[in-house]
């Protein structure tokens, strides 16, 4: 008996204290955000704050329950839960209110009670990924080994995005890249992601800016010159074939010079000149190194060729695939458009609310912007603006620092797991929290596009609170079990 209960002593109480602190402060801000000027009673179970208190109670019970359940069950049911969740995600669309809620079909409504299964899909995916990648005979050696993990995150993400029209929740699955990275995926994948984002931003932001000479756009030219420079950089690393380097550089200069020269008589589209340079360079890298057997440069060549396709695709995707409201949000972040009354309204009002909190804030239930409901979605996605207005920089900095400690603690716990399943799952949890924090606060501060995902433990809503609580407590339970086995 004694041995069976001893894991209780191994629970990471620090994490639980941070969790409770975040929940408590989060609730105060929901109360602030939903407090209205003419409200007489401070507290009432019918109000937003009252309902959230019920959800919080439920979450604590759920957390306690999870700590009591045997940890081995998660490994056993991981695939089953994953499959069941896929089914639920698909079915949700049929159960969601007609027309959806704000255009999203991710909600199941029972009367006033609403549930968003997508919030729990993160959990089932984390379990499935942990189970698959944690297998005794699984080794991440090549791209093929990532095929199944990518399916495990891709399937729910695509269903949520395409079938349920809930882009924000789908994007969260990108955070599993961090887990894969930790498990051995090449760091170049992350670099490629960063490169992709950079190319996208440059291509879109300057895609319509005309060049001073000839035709073509600044965006495309800059992207292509960056890619050319990447290729040249890798070629210069090569110590053999010195002569070849200079021929290469000369050839690039020649192509541009000819372009400039011809431009005197016939206007040249420099987009095509620069694309041609990158494509020729890429093909050269692939072909020449097949013969010379320098696989690294082959990869660089392929990267360049794919990037050309990607960059040209960005423009197309931006203008033809993205929906108008998504396009506006991106244009707004990139400063291509100012619209404080339309798309930019939320972000602008959130900025005003946060900024007006100054250093010490206006005090609990004292935020005039908050009470007068200037910030839409303030209790949910924009809850951080209430923190900013009522608690000032002291409050926002406090929340961020506590969150940082919390996430670093989770990474620390994840790292001490000896069991693959536990570690991968723990890393998934840490990554999910990091992603939510980054995207949500970036959005409220207006540096990232408006992507509607909640700030864990702060945003109003039962599904996300329970989802995050389950993630955290399963992780803590696994950690406790691991520590027990060590003994």
């Amino acid at each position: 008996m004694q041995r069976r209960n001893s894991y209780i002593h191994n629970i990471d109480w620090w994490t639980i204290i941070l969790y409770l602190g975040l929940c408590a402060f989060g609730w105060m801000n929901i109360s602030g955000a939903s407090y209205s000027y003419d409200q007489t009673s401070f507290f009432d179970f019918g109000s937003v704050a009252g309902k959230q208190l019920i959800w919080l109670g439920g979450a604590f019970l759920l957390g306690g329950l999870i700590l009591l359940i045997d940890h081995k069950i998660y490994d056993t049911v991981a695939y089953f839960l994953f499959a069941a969740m896929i089914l639920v995600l698909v079915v949700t669309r049929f159960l969601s209110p007609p027309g959806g809620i704000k255009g999203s079909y991710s909600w199941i409504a029972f009367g006033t009670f609403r549930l968003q299964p997508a919030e729990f899909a993160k959990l089932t995916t984390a379990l499935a990924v942990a189970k698959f990648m944690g297998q005794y005979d699984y080794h991440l050696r090549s791209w093929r080994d990532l095929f199944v993990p990518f399916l495990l995150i891709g399937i729910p993400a695509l269903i949520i995005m395409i079938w349920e029209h809930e882009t924000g929740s789908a994007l969260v699955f990108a955070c599993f890249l961090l887990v894969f990275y930790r498990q051995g995926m090449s760091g170049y994948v992350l670099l490629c992601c960063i490169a992709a984002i950079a190319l996208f931003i440059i291509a879109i932001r300057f895609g319509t800016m005309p060049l001073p000479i000839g035709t073509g756009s600044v965006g495309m030219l800059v992207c292509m010159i960056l890619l050319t420079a990447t290729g040249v950089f890798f070629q210069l690393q090569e110590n053999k074939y010195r002569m070849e380097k200079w021929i290469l550089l000369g050839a690039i200069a020649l192509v541009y010079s000819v372009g400039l020269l011809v431009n005197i008589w016939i206007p040249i589209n420099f987009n095509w000149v620069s694309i041609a340079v990158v494509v020729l360079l890429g093909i050269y890298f692939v072909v020449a190194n097949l013969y010379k057997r320098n696989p690294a440069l082959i990869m660089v060549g392929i990267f360049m060729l794919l990037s050309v396709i990607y960059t040209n695709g960005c423009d197309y995707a931006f203008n033809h695939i993205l929906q108008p409201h998504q396009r506006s949000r991106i244009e707004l972040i990139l400063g291509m458009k100012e619209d404080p009354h339309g798309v930019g309204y939320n972000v602008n009002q959130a900025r005003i609310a946060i900024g007006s909190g100054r250093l010490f804030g206006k005090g609990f239930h004292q935020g005039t912007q908050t009470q007068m409901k200037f910030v839409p979605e303030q209790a949910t996605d924009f809850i951080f603006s209430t923190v900013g207005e009522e608690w000032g920089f002291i409050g926002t900095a406090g929340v961020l620092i506590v969150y940082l400690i919390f996430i670093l603690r989770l990474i620390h716990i994840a790292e001490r797991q000896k069991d693959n399943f536990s570690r991968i799952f723990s890393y998934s949890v840490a990554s999910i929290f990091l992603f939510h924090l980054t995207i949500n606060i970036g959005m409220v501060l207006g540096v990232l596009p408006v992507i509607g995902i909640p700030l864990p433990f702060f945003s109003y809503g039962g599904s996300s609170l329970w989802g995050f609580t389950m993630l955290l407590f399963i992780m803590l339970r696994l950690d406790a079990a691991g520590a027990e086995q060590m003994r």
Partner: protein
Amino acid sequence: MINDNLYRRQYVISGMAVFVVIAYLALLFNLQVIDQSTNDQAEGNAIIKQTIYPARGLIYDRNDSLLVYNQPIYEVMMTMNEMPEDFDTLTFCRLLRIDKQMFDQRILDLQDRRKNPGWSTYTQQVFMSQLKKEDIALLQEELYKFRGIEIRNRTIRNYNCHEAAHILGSVGEVNWDDINADNYYKMGDYSGRDGIERTYETELRGVKGVRKLLRDSKGRIKGRYKNGEDDEPAQAGKDMQLTIDIRLQQIAEKLLRGKIGSIVAIEPSTGEVLALASSPTWDPQLMAGKERSKNYIKLLNDKNRPLFNRATQATYPPGSTFKTVQALVCLDDHVITPHTPYVCNGRNSTTIKCTHSHGSPVTLLSGIEQSCNPYFWNAFRDYLQKGNNGSKNSKKLHERYIQWRESVMRFGLGSRFEDTDIYPQKGGNIPSEEYYNRRYGEKGWIALTIRSLSIGQGEILVTPLQLANQTATIANGGYYITPHLNRNDSMKLHVHQTGIDRHYFDLVREGMGRVMTAGTGRHYSIADVAICGKTGTAQNSHGKDHSIFIGFAPKDDPKIAIAVIVENAGYGSTWAVPIATLVMEYYLKGEIEHTDLFERMSNSNTTQLNAKKE
């Protein structure tokens, strides 16, 4: 193991978390601590400051009759960005009884930054102003249907009298210069534009109050901010009492009807201006309310220049009325004694001819009584040549001239009264020594050169207000109190001494008394009241001479000093004397005995007379 080194990747992931949090902390620090702009935006966002306009101070005359008061008017205010897409323009227009075209035009005008530099979609703009209660009654009832529209009530001036337009001035909308000069004003505020309304603007306007209201994101008012703790109540403007006697002012303006000219009456013992009339004038009511700008343009373009306050802004050579001052200055300097005789050859006099026929030689009293030109020329010459032989090289002559000029200016002549509340004013001119040096060369002028000054002609220019004040100085026997319009005791402290012996004033007064009994003013009188006076005729190179008269009464205890100028009306005795005696009679007796004379004077038209002759 393959994964041996992978544990190091925790630092990369942790590093990302640290990077993100530090970046956000920096952004937040900038937004919440460094950047101040959001604070103001928030203020304008949730807290609206409503201005509470104070009631402007009332204006009374010296006998406590109310002249100027406030009348409520209404303004339709529009906040563009709060108006919904489906704003019911047609109904709105119908309720205000305007047509769609006018609505559109008005919106265009509002958006035109040249016409409306304060344009903004966020702040209230005046869509229509100066509306009466009847005009907005319909809209008021259905106002709740029109988001972004508000009715604001203001007050404009209303008048119990049709006179004193120049004195009272008017209230109008402030312009950008006013706003830049004084941040009390906001676009659309009113301020005193001229006259008393302008001089006493800061007292009359009071202090605006602020009411802070909370507004939600839909623009609905949710209540008072901090329960009104931060509100500031408006403080009403101070009432003021003028020195003007409105009934006297009415008489004065009636007498000037159909003439171009002015009347200034002062109570000598206090410097209080009893009446200050300039003709032509206008009804002050014209400059209040909706028609203000239209009427203003009309008055501005009138060829008789009614907006020009002739009583304080027009300058004339004082003519023979100046002989009183000349006599005093010469007596005080002992150049002449009351018995000094000068020969007058009448029309045959050399240097300056005499316009009147009288005996010779002439002494002081008869000189004044007969307005003898040679007498005063001789006295002036002797004054300037005292202690020198009158040669051009003489420095002494210049010193004497400077001394003479200073003595004359001590009567308040030739320069603006700086310590008064009468606005606007012209200074006039008593030519300086430098002026003659420039004109004739330093050694190029002698007494003979400037002989016209001796009889108040030539370069010397004074305003009717200065003339009246000079008269009051003589009535007081040597000093004056700066003429003023605000009936408050502090103004009585502005005493200015001429420094001339009182005894000499008695002599000049005696001479002025004789003018009214035996001289140029003998045709008009007031029963049982001894009047002192002096007529004048200002030469006018553009047309008929101006008729001038200065006088005071009663002789031994002066209650009123007056100056009258009727432009292009000829001799002082024909127009200015009867008008002045009628005004003094009314002031002293409360009624006019010679009603026929009053009727004749007030109904005659010198401008038509002149027109016929031309």
